[in-house]
C-alpha cells in the first residue's frame, strides 16, 4: 500500500465530496420543507448550468451578472414547480409525488434538449486552476475551490436557518406545518421559498459540475448517486447531508484508486443498500414513529 497515494486520493475524495454535499443539501431542503424527494434535482442542476451558459457565453455578460440572472431564473422555476406541480399533489401517496418529480425531470430534460441541443457545451473556467501542494501531495485547484464554495454556501444556509426570522419560520413549518400555520406562519410561502432555495443550491452545484467537466442534458445523472448520499446521512438532516457527501466522495475516490474507475458509480448504491438494511433512517435522520 502506497500511503502517499492513499492520502492524496483521500483528500481529493473528501474535497470533491463538497459538491456532493451541496447537491445533497438541495434534496434535504426540499424533503425537510415539503416531504418530497425531488427526483428532478439533477434537471434543476442542468437547467441552472444552461442558464449560466446562456448568460455568460451566449449573451457575454460578466460572470457575476450571469450568476445573478441564473439564480433569479432558477428561483422562479422552483416557485413555478412548487405552485403548479407539487402543491396540487399535497397529501397524495408517495408514489404520486415520486412520479410527479420524475415526470417533471423528463419535461425539463426535453425542454433543455430542444432549446440548447444535445451536444456538449463548455463553460469557461470559473475557478482558479492553480494546484495546492502539501509536501508531496498535489491538490487540484478546481476541486479545492469548489469545496470552499460548497462550504460557504452550506454555512450561509445554516446561518440563515438559525439566525433570521424567515429561516426560523421555515424550520418551524418544516417540523410541524399545522402548528406553524396556527402560529401565523405563512406555510405556503415557506414551502415556495424552500423550492427556490433548492433550485439555487442545485444551480450552483450544476455550474460547478459543468465547469469541471462539460455541459450536456445528461449532466443531472450525478444527482441520482447523491440520492444515495442522503439516505446515508438521513433524509431530513443537513448535517447528515454534509457528512454523507464527504464519506461518499472519499469512498468513490478510493474506489477509483484501488479497484478501478468502472466500479466508481456503483459505490453510492452499494452504500445505500447496506445502510437501508442496517440503519434505514440514516446516520442522523429522525426515526419515524407510526401511529394508527
Amino acid at each position, binding site marked *: 500500500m502506497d500511503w502517499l497515494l492513499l492520502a492524496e486520493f483521500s483528500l481529493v475524495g473528501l474535497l470533491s465530496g463538497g459538491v456532493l454535499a451541496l447537491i445533497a443539501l438541495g434534496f434535504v431542503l426540499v424533503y425537510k420543507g415539503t416531504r418530497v*424527494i425531488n427526483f428532478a434535482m439533477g434537471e434543476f442542476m442542468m437547467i441552472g448550468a444552461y442558464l449560466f451558459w446562456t448568460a455568460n457565453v451566449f449573451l457575454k455578460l460578466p460572470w457575476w451578472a450571469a450568476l445573478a440572472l441564473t439564480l433569479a431564473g432558477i428561483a422562479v422555476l422552483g416557485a413555478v414547480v412548487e405552485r403548479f*406541480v407539487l402543491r*396540487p*399533489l399535497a397529501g*397524495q*401517496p*408517495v*408514489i*404520486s409525488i*415520486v*412520479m*410527479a418529480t*420524475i*415526470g*417533471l*425531470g*423528463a*419535461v*425539463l*430534460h*426535453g*425542454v433543455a*434538449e*430542444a432549446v440548447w441541443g*444535445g451536444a456538449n457545451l463548455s463553460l469557461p473556467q470559473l475557478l482558479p486552476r492553480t494546484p495546492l501542494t502539501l509536501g508531496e501531495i498535489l491538490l487540484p485547484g478546481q476541486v479545492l475551490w469548489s469545496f470552499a464554495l460548497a462550504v460557504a454556501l452550506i454555512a450561509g444556509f445554516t446561518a440563515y436557518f438559525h439566525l433570521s426570522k424567515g429561516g426560523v419560520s421555515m424550520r418551524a413549518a418544516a417540523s410541524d406545518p399545522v402548528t406553524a400555520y396556527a402560529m401565523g406562519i405563512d406555510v405556503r410561502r415557506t414551502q415556495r421559498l424552500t423550492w427556490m432555495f433548492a433550485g439555487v443550491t442545485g444551480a450552483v452545484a450544476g455550474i460547478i459540475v459543468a465547469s469541471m467537466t462539460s455541459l450536456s442534458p445528461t449532466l443531472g445523472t450525478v444527482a*441520482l448517486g447523491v*440520492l*444515495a448520499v442522503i*439516505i446515508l446521512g438521513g*433524509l431530513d438532516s443537513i448535517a447528515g447531508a454534509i457528512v454523507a457527501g464527504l464519506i461518499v466522495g472519499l469512498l468513490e475516490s478510493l474506489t477509483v484508486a484501488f479497484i478501478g474507475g*468502472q*466500479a466508481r*458509480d*456503483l459505490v453510492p*448504491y*452499494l452504500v*445505500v*443498500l447496506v445502510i*437501508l*438494511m442496517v440503519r*434505514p433512517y440514516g446516520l442522523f435522520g429522525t426515526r419515524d414513529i*407510526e401511529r*394508527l
Partner: protein
Amino acid sequence: MRIGDFHASYRHDEALFDTRVQRIWFGLLLAALAAFPFVGGSYLTYLACLLGIHLISAAGLNVMTGYTGLISLGHAAFMGVGCYTVAVAERAGIPFFLALPLAGATSAAIGLVVGIPSLRIKGLYFAVATLAAQFVLGFVFREWESVTGGVRGANVPAASLFGFELAGDRRIYFLIVPLAVAMLLGARNLFRTRVGRAFIAIRDRDISAEVLGISLFRYKLAAFAIGSFYAGVAGGLWGYFFRVATPELFGLPLSIFYLAAIIVGGLGSILGTILGATFMTLIPELLRAMVGWAEALGLKEAGVYLAPIRQVVFGLLIVGFLIFEPHGLAEMWRRVRRFFHLWPFRT
C-alpha cells in the same frame, strides 16, 4: 339502461366475467387477436408483439406497486435478468418453453433478495433501494462479460419448437400474445385469492394487515417475487423478439416507462395496466408519425426535435394524469361506461 346484476350464487359472485355480454366480448377479443397478424400487416404485428411484452411487464409492476404499494424503480433490471437468462439458457440448448419459466424464476429469485429490505423499510426508502438494485444489476450486466457479453451484449437465438423456428414477427406473435393473455388473466385471478387480497390489505394499511394475521414480510416478498417473475418472462420474450440483450436496453428509463404506464392507466387495476401500457406504447409511434408529416409539409428540422418532444410529452402525461386524473385511464373508461349505462336518465 342496465338494471341490477344480482349475484344469485357464490359461483356467480366469484366469476371473473360476471355477465354474459362480457364473456361474449372476451371471446370476440380472442378471435380478433388470433386473426390479427394475418390482417394487420407487418408494422401492426410488430407493435402488437411489443405491446404484449410491455403488458406482461407492466402487469408485474402493477402487482407490486399498484396492488401491494411497493414502489419499484428497478423493474427494467429484472427484465434484463430474464433476457440474459434466456440468452444463457439458449446457449446451453434449453428450449424456449423451459427457458421462459427459468427466466421468470431467476428474476423472481433475485427479486426475493432485493425485496429483503422491505422488511424494515417502505415507501420512499424502498423506492431508493430498488433504484440501487437497478444500478447494481446494470453494473453486473455491463461487467460480467463472460456471461452477458458486456457492453456489446449477447445474441439470443430464435425460439424454436421441434426445429420450427419462431423467427419473424408473425410467428413470435403466437408465442407472445397468448402468453400475455394468460398472464394478464393470471394477474386478474390473483386478486380473487387470499394472497392477492393480502397484498391489497398491505397496501391500504400495513399495520392493520399484520394485526389481521397477514405476515407482512412473507407477503411483501411474495408480491416482489411475482412482480419480478412477470418482468423476467417479459424480458425473456424481449430477448426472443429482438434477438439481442444489451445493458442499456434495461436501464432506468425503461423502469420509469413502466411506472408511467401503470400511473397513466390506473394503479391497482388490470384494465388500467392494459389501457396504460397500450397508450404509452402508441404515443411515441404517434409522435413519430406526426413528425413525419411535419417533415413532409416542409419543416426540415422537425426530426431533430423528435426525442425532446417525446421526453416532454412523456413527462407532461405523467404529471397531468397525477394531478387531473389520479386513477388513470381505467377511471375514465368506467366513467364513459357509466354514462352509457345510465343514459338517458342521467346525462
